[in-house]
């Protein structure tokens, strides 16, 4: 099990020693950019990024490289054209994932990431766009990748992006009349009291607005009423 050349294996002389390869959150060290033992190089696509730069020029804002993986920040307005270019010219035929990120920062608060895979060249690419709080509109890529449909609905549900030209802009998880977007940083973890009603306590009663009704003394009754106990 403990091969000596395995960087994750503990020292045979000192098996209690634990070695961590933690992921720093801010600036990666130079050697980690290439020598990260977890990096596989599948998300390293310099030739595709060059092709993107040639085609779109300034719309490719910047390229980050961490743990041997490329992240391409592109302009929000042109995301659909870029996706279409990647699909039709660069054979990124497989749409993996799309989602939102809330950085809770003053400007460019949100990000939307797109993970694409080229099954032909067996490479991945990660695109990111920055979305400001003032303008939550994002061009929908459903026209290019039909698989993005539900992912965009989920991102709308959780963060409140408005996906322009989405064919079915409904919420994914929460009820249609829910007023909040739960994955935003300011949303309280236990929810907003009264925003999600519970069912009535009796078959023909009102909806229960208190999510902790039981803790506040509510005892739902059966229509088959239990008799009182001796202790009461």
């Amino acid at each position, binding site marked *: 099990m403990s091969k000596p050349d395995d960087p994750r294996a503990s020292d045979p002389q000192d098996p209690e020693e634990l070695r961590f390869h933690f992921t720093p959150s801010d600036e990666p060290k130079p050697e980690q950019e290439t020598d990260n033992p977890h990096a596989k190089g599948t998300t390293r696509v310099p030739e595709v990024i060059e092709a993107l730069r040639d085609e779109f020029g300034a719309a490719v804002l910047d390229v980050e490289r961490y743990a041997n993986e490329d992240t391409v920040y592109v302009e929000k307005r042109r995301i659909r054209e870029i996706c279409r270019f990647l699909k039709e010219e660069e054979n990124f035929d497989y749409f993996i994932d799309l989602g939102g990120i809330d950085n809770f920062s003053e400007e460019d608060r949100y990000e939307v990431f797109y993970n694409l895979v080229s099954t032909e060249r067996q490479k991945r690419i990660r695109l990111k766009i920055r979305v400001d709080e003032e303008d939550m509109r994002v061009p929908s890529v459903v026209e290019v990748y039909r698989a993005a449909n539900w992912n965009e609905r989920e991102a709308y549900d959780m963060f409140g992006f408005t996906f322009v030209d989405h064919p079915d802009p409904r919420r994914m*998880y*929460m*009820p249609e009349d829910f007023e909040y977007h*739960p994955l935003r940083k300011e*949303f*309280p*973890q*236990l*929810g*907003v009291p009264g925003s*999600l*009603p*519970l*069912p*009535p*306590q009796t*078959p023909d009663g009102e909806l*229960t607005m*208190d*999510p*902790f*009704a*039981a803790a506040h003394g*509510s*005892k*739902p*009754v*059966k*229509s*088959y*009423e*239990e*008799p*009182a*106990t*001796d*202790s009461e």
Partner: protein
Amino acid sequence: MAGPSGGNGQGFFTTRVDALLNWARSNSLMPMPMGLACCAIEMMGFAGPKYDSARFGSEAMRFSPRQADLMIVAGWCSYKMSHAIRRVWDQMGDPKWCVAMGACASTGGMHRCYGVVQGVDNFLPVDVYISGCPPRPESVLHALMDIQEKIRNEYSVVQDYEFGKARERAPIMPENTSKFPGQLEKPKATDLTLEAPDTAADDAEGSSSVEPVAA
């Protein structure tokens, strides 16, 4: 007979019919498997041949609420699902019982968040809670036995035919239930204090202070 014949209606006849009814009901519970998450897998083990809930007469899971009388809420319940669960519960015919299986159904468990109901007892009358994440099938069997114990101590005839004052006077639990929560023991006759009958000599035994309970 089974009607309000003074006292709490607990004559010789009703207690004997209770014994028969409760015996029948408790040994033929038809669970409605409200399987919502991983607890449902353990519930399948509970119904399967190894743990064999057929020994307790409740091997027949009923997927129609009209045919079930025991709802096992197994798994975490979201706010969206809670309305469906309540609707299924309301469609079940009386008498009916409810088991909250596992930490999530009982309290919300590890899902302390905006989308998961923090315990199904916020909208359902739960009879028995099962701890565990997920509980072993033995725990579900234990809960089933607790439900059976509860049924055997019910005054079914009075409950079925008489809604009103009498049902509030019918004791179901012995006093020691509060001392040992979770232990559903049969009421002991000497611990029971029933109210004096409105009319004297309402039943065959004359005195109702030491009423034999249905067992």
